[in-house]
């Protein structure tokens, strides 16, 4: 069963072999390292860029203008805040040229907390990303979805952001959620596509034959059904929500968990239908909570479903502080965790006017 990082690697292999990707690049993306999280090991079109995020985003735009499909990595989303203007630029090329030019590129970046990344390796990017018009934005929560969403980003004729939750990079597929064609045995897959420690100059990966599996941008996934409460999440917090939902079964609460997985476009139909059934909705993400994308979803809920709500819709998100402190206690208190999610769910499920 692949990890998310292996799934990304498999997708990138398919993309460079069959989908026309010409460049997979960024800081330490090429040999010898193959990416800070090993996501780009063994691929044939990878190369190391200068240490310059503006140059990385700029080159990706330029490649797109020249009709090349590229996947550019920014090593952590925390480092892209010097290039928001260039993202805005990428997002407006089609519109500003009144439809003449396209800017098809995929920018991939690890996001979020969960690896004790301290102040500046724990940021989320969903709030700023969704505030930049013209981008499609995906964020997987399982290896298979990483595979399918990344392929969809790559073939999309528009600029895409592919956000990878750092905390989920090493999480493995669940049975039934494999990528078709991957060897069932973890060790077997590792032997095929993980670079050895030490000297890698002679190593060649052996790629299993995996298909062009596209997960459509704009379609959510209902992870578990439930009648009492809708929970909409994505990224690191998604599996935590699922776990909390499972725990609440014993309390007699049935929570429906939706993985949004595509933040733009997003699957409003799925969210709406669920909220109409449950009358209660909790949005969960780990970006800081002021001017947060969950607030957009909540606003839309209120806008369209106000009179169908049985309780005020809620957002559970990160504390509005400048970063996440390194010490365990600090990280735990800064972003939603199992306990706080569970409590928020229970409170909302049981809240009465």
């Amino acid at each position: 069963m692949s990890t998310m990082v292996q799934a990304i690697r498999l997708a990138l292999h398919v993309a460079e072999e069959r989908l026309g990707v010409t460049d997979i690049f960024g800081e330490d993306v090429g040999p010898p390292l193959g990416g800070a999280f090993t996501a780009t090991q063994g691929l044939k079109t990878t190369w190391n860029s200068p240490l310059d995020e503006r140059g990385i985003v700029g080159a990706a735009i330029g490649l797109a203008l020249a009709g090349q499909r590229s996947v550019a990595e920014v090593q952590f989303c925390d480092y892209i805040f010097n290039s928001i203007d260039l993202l805005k630029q990428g997002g407006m090329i089609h519109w500003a040229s009144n439809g003449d030019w396209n800017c098809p590129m995929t920018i991939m970046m690890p996001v979020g907390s969960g690896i004790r990344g301290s102040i500046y390796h724990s940021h989320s990017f969903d709030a700023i990303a969704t505030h930049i018009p013209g981008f499609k934005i995906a964020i997987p929560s399982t290896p298979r979805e990483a595979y399918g969403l990344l392929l969809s980003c790559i073939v999309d004729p528009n600029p895409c952001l592919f956000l990878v939750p750092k905390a989920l990079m090493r999480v493995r597929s669940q049975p039934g959620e494999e990528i078709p064609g991957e060897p069932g045995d973890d060790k077997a897959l590792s032997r095929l596509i993980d670079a050895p420690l030490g000297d890698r100059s002679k190593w060649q990966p052996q790629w299993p034959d995996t298909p062009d599996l596209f997960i459509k941008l704009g379609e959510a996934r209902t992870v578990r059904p439930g009648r009492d409460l809708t929970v909409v999440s994505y990224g690191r917090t998604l599996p935590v929500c699922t776990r909390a939902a499972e725990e609440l079964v014993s309390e007699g609460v049935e929570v429906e968990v939706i993985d949004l997985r595509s933040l733009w476009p997003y699957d409003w139909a799925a969210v709406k239908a669920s909220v109409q059934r449950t009358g209660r909705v909790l949005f969960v993400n780990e970006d800081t909570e002021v001017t947060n994308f969950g607030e957009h979803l909540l606003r839309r809920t209120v806008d369209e479903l106000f009179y169908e709500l049985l309780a005020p819709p809620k957002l559970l998100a990160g504390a509005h502080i400048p970063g996440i402190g390194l010490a365990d206690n600090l990280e735990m208190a800064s972003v939603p965790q199992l306990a706080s999610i569970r409590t928020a769910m229970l409170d909302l499920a049981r809240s009465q006017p």
Partner: protein
Amino acid sequence: MSSGLRPVRSATEADLSAELLVRMHGLMLKARLLEERLIQMYKQGDGYFWIGGPGEEAFNVPLGLLIDKGSGPQHDYCHFHYRNSGTLLAMGAEPIDALRQMKNTATDPYSGGRNFVGHYSRREWNVVPVSSPIEVQYSIAPGTALAQKRAGGRGISIVTGGDAGTAEGDFATCLVWASRPANPLPLLIIVTNNHYGISTRSEGQHGETRISDRARAFNIESKTIDGNDPGVSYRELAAAMDYVRTERKPFMLEAVLSRLHGHSSASGANAVLDEADCLKGFERTMEERKLMTRAQMDTLRAEFTLELQEAHKKVRDEPQPTGDTIFDHVFSERDLVRGDQ
């Protein structure tokens, strides 16, 4: 065969044919009149904002003539800023289209009335959309050059911008990325130095003796030239382009030139009298060298003026974009990589 870091040799003055000089003069004159017409439109309320390149014709026209115009990596990619009207004209753009953008009509082929004048964009000619935030084109240009390096052939990327803007990190990014030993890029890096950023003189802000010295630090061949002389500009651009096309390596060209109507309409757009006027100078030369008479030039001027006047009238009656179109083209369904058109 590659000749390594051989110095770039430009042609001598004698190498420029009379025919070429006459052609350049015509384009420079037309470019100037176009800008003057645009300024007039602004002053008459036929547009909200003017910015453009009067004073840069001696450099921008040769640039346009030398560009290998077309679509895709075998042709040149153009990453321009807002003073390149003379270049577009020399490439063959219709002056009326600039007027359309000035008046933000729905017929404006560059942005459909969305963007300021001078913000060209034309995919069939590899002219990528001009950005108002300055200098970002220097971060983007290495991307098209990368594609061209891989494609082979003689297509190059060309990026232009002003002197003050080189203080932005993007300019350094361009130098770094163009000169990577792992993959030097066929990129012609141009800076038009008019010694001003809006109201700010360069002398207090720029410690470099020449901006082109910054390229030298990266072992990028570079040169500073008199951009007010169309002969010099043509020859130096031709030599620089030949180097970049052949060697598949970057070259930086700094052209010192004039800004004849101030920064933009924000600073009044009035004629400045204390800077050298390349058109006047060139017309004197043309007369002296007996390549054209004053009368011929006057006739030409009258012709172009009329043409632009007609165009202005025509554009006045063209429709504005409607409010319900604001959501058009946020996303594309068309896959250009796959070959959709």
